[in-house]
């Protein structure tokens, strides 16, 4: 260390003299501050640990506010009295508070960057209150418009937030390889795959295979015809038939999917891509694949569960393994999730793979699965049990 300058010595003297001057019994004072700091730490601990027994009168927001205030108080006590910023030269305080100001600004700027976008594209998970649920119905329309606007804007930023290479050519391949109904029926020879038909055949011929579980179908009223048909004939009707009927999945196409489009672009497109092509090995394609699920036995409920509770575990689609994780999206309203399903099932040529009378998803269908409260592993199990394509 360099030898001390006279000015350092002067500072020493100034500091100690000023200290002696206004803190005669400084040790006692330090003990007092330490006791206060310890007490605050215990209070913070108690606020969180005994929230449900001691502090039932306080709402979560109040606890949060109290915790922030208490930690700020501790912060200030240490800076003022342990670091002696109070009573020390004001230049120190000036430098430190400028640094603090920039630091706090950084915190706010960072959280603003993220929360403003989240508000535009998603609703906060805390929206479970009854009042909110009521309001959601009214909000849904304006929200939808807002979202579709935001969706396109955030798409680009989301795309580069995840550093997946965007293999354009591969995506196209996936779409082409995607087991469309005509491919399935036409080509058992096709290298593409284990599709609905193939799968269910192997399933029935496999002796040790688990028996397929049929879930109660709470929304048979709308999709009754289609569901019945599917059970009897797992594969989709030939594309030609659907087109001949004038507009594939007309009911789906007619459904209002503006809210769903916003939700999709803001939340799903970063993994499943704006084209629904997915990412090979990680995120399954929706284009071409979603109708297979929608038409499979138990597929409608599965799709709702998939959105509500997510999915984790390796799955095989058209001979390609996928092992990304699907998060749960239960924070969205029933309307939004139904609309999202209708959006993906009516986009990217998916509608052509569905029969004209295929019913659009309704909020009630989503609501019916809310009580199930599945884990991602249970959704995975459901998928395996149903032997979905």
């Amino acid at each position, binding site marked *: 260390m360099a030898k*001390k300058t006279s000015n350092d010595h002067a500072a020493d003297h100034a500091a100690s003299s000023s200290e002696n001057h206004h803190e005669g019994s400084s040790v006692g004072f*330090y003990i007092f501050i330490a006791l206060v700091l310890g007490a605050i730490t215990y209070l913070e601990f108690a606020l969180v640990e005994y929230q449900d027994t001691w502090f039932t009168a306080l709402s979560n927001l109040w606890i949060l506010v109290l915790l922030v205030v208490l930690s700020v108080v501790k912060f200030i006590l240490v800076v003022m009295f342990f670091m002696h910023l109070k009573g020390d030269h004001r230049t120190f305080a000036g*430098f430190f508070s400028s640094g603090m100001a920039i630091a706090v600004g950084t915190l706010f700027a960072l959280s603003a960057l993220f929360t403003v976008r989240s508000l535009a594209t998603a609703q906060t998970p805390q929206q479970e209150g009854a009042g909110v649920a009521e309001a959601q119905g009214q909000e849904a329309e304006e929200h939808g418009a807002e979202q579709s606007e935001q969706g396109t804007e955030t798409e680009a930023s989301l795309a580069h937030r995840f550093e997946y290479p965007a293999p354009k050519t591969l995506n196209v391949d996936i779409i082409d390889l995607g087991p469309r109904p005509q491919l399935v029926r036409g080509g058992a020879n096709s290298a593409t795959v284990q599709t609905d038909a193939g799968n269910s055949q192997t399933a029935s011929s496999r002796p040790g295979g688990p028996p397929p579980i049929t879930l109660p179908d709470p929304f048979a009223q709308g999709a009754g015809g289609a569901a019945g048909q599917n059970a009897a004939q797992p594969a989709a009707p030939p594309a030609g038939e659907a087109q001949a009927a004038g507009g594939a999945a007309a009911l789906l196409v007619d459904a209002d999917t503006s809210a769903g489009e916003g939700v999709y672009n803001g939340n799903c497109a970063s993994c499943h891509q704006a084209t629904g092509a997915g990412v090979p090995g990680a995120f399954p394609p929706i284009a071409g694949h979603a109708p297979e699920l929608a038409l499979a036995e138990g597929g409608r409920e599965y799709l709702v569960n998939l959105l509500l509770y997510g999915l984790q575990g390796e799955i095989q689609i058209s001979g390609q393994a996928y092992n990304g994780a699907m998060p749960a999206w239960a924070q969205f309203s029933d309307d939004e999730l139904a609309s999202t399903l209708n959006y993906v099932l009516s986009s990217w040529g998916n509608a052509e793979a569905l029969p004209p009378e295929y019913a659009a998803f309704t909020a009630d269908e989503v609501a019916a699965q809310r009580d199930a409260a599945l884990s991602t592993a249970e959704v995975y199990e459901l998928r395996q049990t149903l032997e979905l394509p």
Partner: protein
Amino acid sequence: MSSLIPGHTTHTEHRSTPLSDRKLLMWIFLASDCMFFAALIGTYLVYNGRSLVGPYPTDILDIPLTTVSTFVLLMSSFLMVLALHAIRMNDIPKFRLWTLGVAFFGSIFLGFQVYEFSHFIYEGLTLQQNLFGSTFFTLTGTHGVHVTIGVLWLLSLLIISYVRPMTSQDALSVEIAGLYWHFVDIVWIVIFTAVYLVEFI
């Protein structure tokens, strides 16, 4: 070290108290470290709740354990002011005792952190497991490195006190080490609230 403050030596009449360059430098460093930690804490907070796979914070964070280690760190700060007070009073034995206490408490805190980290890794939370793992380990790990440096710094002051006679003239060195130590403490005060407590409301 020369004077960095303009007019420092020549126009003494404009100053109320003389500024110590080393102390000023430490305060400037602490100000910059504030921004550094703000970036890390901010990153942790904005990615909070965005992990696609577990373990999630509420699965593995341990509030009682962390409260104890927070308390230990706070008390080490208290011992630090006692050590500074002792050397100002030229009470070298007490200075050694308190400084050893600070280093000891700091090591206990580090011990808690080592236990916490190894427990988390055992539970499957690694740096690359999910966003929580990446941001949590980066933030608390950086803080842990700060604590480690602080412990080494204080131990070196302790060794110096045996190598050569220390007087109240060395109080400035102790004070600067103390500033650093208290800063590490206040950063933990913020982390304890922002990372641990808020998660369990």
